């Protein structure tokens, strides 16, 4: 077995192993440390000694043993504690979902949820997570141990939430997965070597979640949205890291298989589950991805979808994106008027996207002087380096 396959096997198995150990013994904190050590042992021993017949059982056995040792070290200081008899824990169907829900527990901060999910469910090491998030390993280690402490203190057990609570908890899980996906975009350039792609990891985890909850339309919407967005990645940046806007992307470089899959998933979800905001966002991405050329984009349909999204889950970014679609349908002058109404929202005060859209629309009306100023203004306000470069280039072209 190659190193990559081994890595893949370990990461796929890790959450099952952890779930089984936590369900058997209840102490998430120590169990998680024990599973990390079992994974490390496997990564060291298996390449030389071969993969055991039942890798999962091997890992569960080693983790259970390590857990006892960890607890002994701890209790030696206090008093010897009677340890429960140790039959090897088995694996249950909903274990992985329970584990994911625990990692995304509402008592945790968002950064802790992300770090813990990547390690406990994603099977990534602290070092890998640190490289992916572009922060020191010690910082990630601290986020994970704080998260585990919070779980212990909150008294959250390894149990499936009650039916009435599950919906809300799943919303939290979807948010964490989307956050991981977006972290991948935030850090998408720079040294790729030995770095886990967080967008790929988020898609992998969402795929797993969809397999557990095939009838959840919003999980389907999330997976579709990720696939349809990530499909454009090869065309989104220039070799120098420069940003290529949707309208100028070389669409032949889009990932066709990801688009096909994303469209299949969203089409199916819209037909058989109640509609939700993630499904609409996926549908919008699908309309973009279906257009062979930028000029083929069905903006009227996108505008209708934004109207629906605006009714279902309004927000300042939805308002702004709707303005872009509105301007495509009704012309830049009408768009500028709609933009000024939208910009009155205090949540958008000083937001660079308002300036960037205004610049784009002024450019289209032929008002080059004001467009140039707005592009420069937007370039100063953005927190993204590729965006700043792009906006400066647009200003310079006018």
């Amino acid at each position, binding site marked *: 077995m190659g190193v990559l396959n081994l890595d893949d096997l370990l990461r796929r198995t890790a959450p099952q192993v952890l779930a089984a150990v936590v369900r058997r013994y209840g102490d998430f904190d120590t169990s998680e440390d024990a599973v990390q050590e079992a994974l490390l042992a496997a990564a060291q021993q298996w390449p030389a000694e071969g993969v055991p017949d039942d890798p999962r059982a091997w890992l569960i056995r080693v983790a259970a043993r390590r857990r006892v040792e960890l607890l002994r070290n701890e209790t030696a200081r206090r008093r010897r504690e009677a340890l429960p008899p140790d039959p090897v824990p088995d694996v249950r169907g909903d274990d992985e979902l329970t584990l994911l829900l625990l990692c995304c527990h509402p008592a945790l*901060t*968002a*950064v*802790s949820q992300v*770090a813990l999910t990547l390690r406990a469910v994603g099977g990534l090491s602290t070092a890998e997570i640190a490289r992916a*998030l*572009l*922060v*020191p390993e*010690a*910082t*990630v280690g*601290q*986020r994970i141990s*704080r998260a585990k402490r919070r779980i212990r203190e909150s008294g959250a057990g390894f149990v499936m939430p009650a039916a009435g609570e599950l919906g809300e908890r799943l919303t939290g899980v979807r948010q964490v997965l989307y956050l991981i996906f*977006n972290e991948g*975009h*935030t*850090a*998408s*350039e*720079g040294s790729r070597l030995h770095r886990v792609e967080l967008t790929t990891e988020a898609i992998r985890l969402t795929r797993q979640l969809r397999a557990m909850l095939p009838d959840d339309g919003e999980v389907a919407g999330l997976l579709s949205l990720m696939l349809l967005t990530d499909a*454009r990645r090869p065309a*989104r*940046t220039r070799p120098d*890291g420069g*940003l290529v*806007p*949707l309208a100028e992307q070389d669409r032949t470089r889009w990932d066709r298989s990801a688009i096909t899959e994303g469209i299949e998933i969203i089409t199916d979800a819209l037909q058989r589950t109640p509609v939700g905001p993630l499904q609409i966002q996926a549908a919008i991405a699908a309309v973009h991805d279906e257009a062979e050329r930028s000029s083929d984009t069905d903006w009227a349909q996108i505008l209708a979808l934004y109207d629906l999204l605006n009714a279902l889950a309004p927000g300042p970014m939805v308002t702004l994106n709707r303005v*872009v679609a509105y301007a495509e349908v009704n012309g830049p002058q009408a768009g500028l008027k709609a933009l000024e109404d939208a910009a009155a929202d205090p949540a958008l005060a000083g937001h660079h*996207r308002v300036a*960037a*859209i205004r610049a*784009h629309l002024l450019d289209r009306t032929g008002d080059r002087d004001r467009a140039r100023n707005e592009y420069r203004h937007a370039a100063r306000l953005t*927190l*993204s*380096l*590729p*965006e*700043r470069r*792009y906006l400066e280039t647009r200003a310079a072209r006018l």
Partner: protein
Amino acid sequence: MKYLILIQSNPRSLAAWDKMSDAERMDFGVGHLKLTDEMIEAGVHVASEGLADPTLAKWVSVRNGETIASDGPFAEVKEHLAGFYLIDCPSEQEAIGWAAKVPDALHTEVEVRPVLDMSGWEF
């Protein structure tokens, strides 16, 4: 989001330092060390350092492929960077909260600057 908290040394901060007792100076230094520990413990710390005196700085330029290192024009400079904290936290509000814990904020003010990232939306 990463934020850089910049601490400047200027005539006002030097005047505040001059007025401090030894015990207060000790507390000031301990305050920085404690803040670093607190940031590490909270999982937001990326890096933090205090900088040596600017008289020890070298100004480096390359002309015609030749590297020139010279002593800086420090004599007329009234303000210089004295130290920084680089943190990673979700919001500007949280970054401001950390900046408020920098001991220097009690005497002068510290600056919070967002760090550019590589994100990119499409339009």
